[in-house]
């Protein structure tokens, strides 16, 4: 356990050295610049647009970090041949893998937490500039605590994307292929409803069955999207969040188990 923690800490420090946390600065600059521009470009609902933009920026920045760093976590060690030096130490393969995963997810969560703080500060400022009528007309208050639920779901989604990226990188030595596969599954995972109802648009029952099987097997990334609900203060069904969180954790466990099994048998020559 201690080894996993040390590897995770190393990954976090490596990410800081690689200027990953610069994304926070980029996020804050984008949000502040846009919050000024939005007032000039739109007619009302500035608050909704800034909320949408903040959540989308957090999700997109996290997605790029999760994919591009996630696929390099193992591949880079193999490329640089530093994997030999690491595994020569008392570090078992699964400890290295899990440490890497936890380190990157930790980086992502720190990133998200600071971005969420910047997000709330910008929203509080925007809220202070709005008229009473605009505040009354808004579907939710500027610094609505429910926005944190969306941030939490983004965090879980990113943890799943990281597990997916790590999974591909355990057996593929091509970063491009790993990135393509991760992004491909991320996109496919947004089409859950279409896959589920595939039988309604095809004549072949077999094709319909395959669509339905894919719906259950592929990671359902659409389930993590509650951005619209929190921004519009719409109700979220009881148990939805806990079930989705449970789904993410089980899927992550599945991917990490598969990654550990593949990585344990991988030949680095």
């Amino acid at each position, binding site marked *: 356990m201690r080894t996993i923690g040390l590897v995770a800490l190393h990954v976090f420090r490596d990410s800081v050295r690689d200027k990953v946390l610069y994304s926070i600065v980029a996020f804050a600059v984008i949000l502040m610049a846009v919050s000024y521009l939005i007032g000039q470009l739109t007619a*009302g*609902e500035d608050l909704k647009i800034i909320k*949408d933009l903040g959540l*989308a920026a957090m999700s997109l920045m996290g997605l790029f970090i999760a994919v591009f760093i996630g696929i390099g976590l193992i591949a880079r060690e193999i490329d640089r041949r530093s994997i030999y030096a690491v595994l020569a130490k008392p570090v078992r393969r699964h400890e290295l893998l899990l440490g890497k995963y936890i380190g990157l997810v930790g980086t992502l969560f720190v990133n998200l937490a600071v971005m969420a703080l910047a997000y709330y500060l910008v929203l509080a400022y925007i809220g202070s500039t709005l008229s009473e009528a605009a505040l009354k*007309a808004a579907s939710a208050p500027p610094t609505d605590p429910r926005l944190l639920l969306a941030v939490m779901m983004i965090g879980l989604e990113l943890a799943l994307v990281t597990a997916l990226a790590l999974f591909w990188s355990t057996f593929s030595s091509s970063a491009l292929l790993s990135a393509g596969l991760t992004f491909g599954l991320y996109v496919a995972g947004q089409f859950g409803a279409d896959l589920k109802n595939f039988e309604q648009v095809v004549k072949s029952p077999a094709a319909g069955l395959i669509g339905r099987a894919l719906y259950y097997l592929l990671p359902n990334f659409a389930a993590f999207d509650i951005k619209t609900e929190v921004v*519009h203060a719409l109700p979220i069904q009881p148990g939805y969040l806990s079930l989705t969180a449970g789904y993410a954790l089980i899927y992550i466990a599945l991917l990490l188990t598969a990654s550990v099994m593949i990585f344990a048998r991988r030949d680095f020559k």
Partner: protein
Amino acid sequence: MKGVTKLGAGFLTIAVLTMGVVRLQMVREQRFTQAEATQQVLYVSSPAVLTRLALSYDALVADLYWIRAIQYYGGTRLSDAASKSYALLYPLLDLTTALDPNFNIAYEFGAFFLSEKKPGGPGRSDLAIRLLEKGIAARPDRWQYPYDVGFVHYRDGDYKDAAEWFLRAAETPGAKKDGERADVWLRPLAANTLAAGRDTRSSRVLYQQLLKSDASWLRADAARRLKQLDAIDSIAVLEQLTAEYERRFGNPPPRWDDMVRAGLLRRAPLDPDGHEYVLNPWWGDVTLADDSPLWPLPTEKPA
């Protein structure tokens, strides 16, 4: 020292090249303005396709389409073109609301834009109502959408349908919500609209509601409309007085001073924006001065 000189030379080169790029762009712009006139194109017109393309960023893409719809409407409205085409306005609003079915402002302002009368506006009340009906399907609890449909009918002079929609608005669960109780004023409004037809009282109620809007331009427009209604009522009273003058002296008053001398007015009357009303010495009818910000008045007749 050598390093500093190199760095300085580098910055200088960048500055010179930047100025070159900007200058060239300015020259290019002057020479090829006509050739570069952009035509508004909607690359993706299917809401179903766009919703899928947006992945989980549908709300953000909806915001972008909404901003585009506003810019498109504003750009077209302010253009000098003799015949203004708003062909893309409804498709843009349709895409916006397909991406985010809870985008209230896109339904409400979108319908307002679409139903604006020609020649300045699109004059497409049918599309405005279609957009609002989409909103009603997405959020049947909101009273604002049926109310807005009523408003579109009202603007078109279709008072019977307007009254029906105001009643429908009063029946929605949202109108009966504590703290809001919009049904309290929606029912009398429906009754007024149905009974009185073109009266300024109904208009006043409608525009007073718009005064509570969160959009400052809509509040400003409503405030101007309310002043116009005040002017309509004042003109009605003034025309009664000019008729009284004609009854007494056998001809309409040539100037306001004659009305003052006859004791019918204390001074020359001013409109709500402080401009003197114009008196027609031949017929005795009263109008706004054409330099008044309230000119021209809508066609409503006073109650």
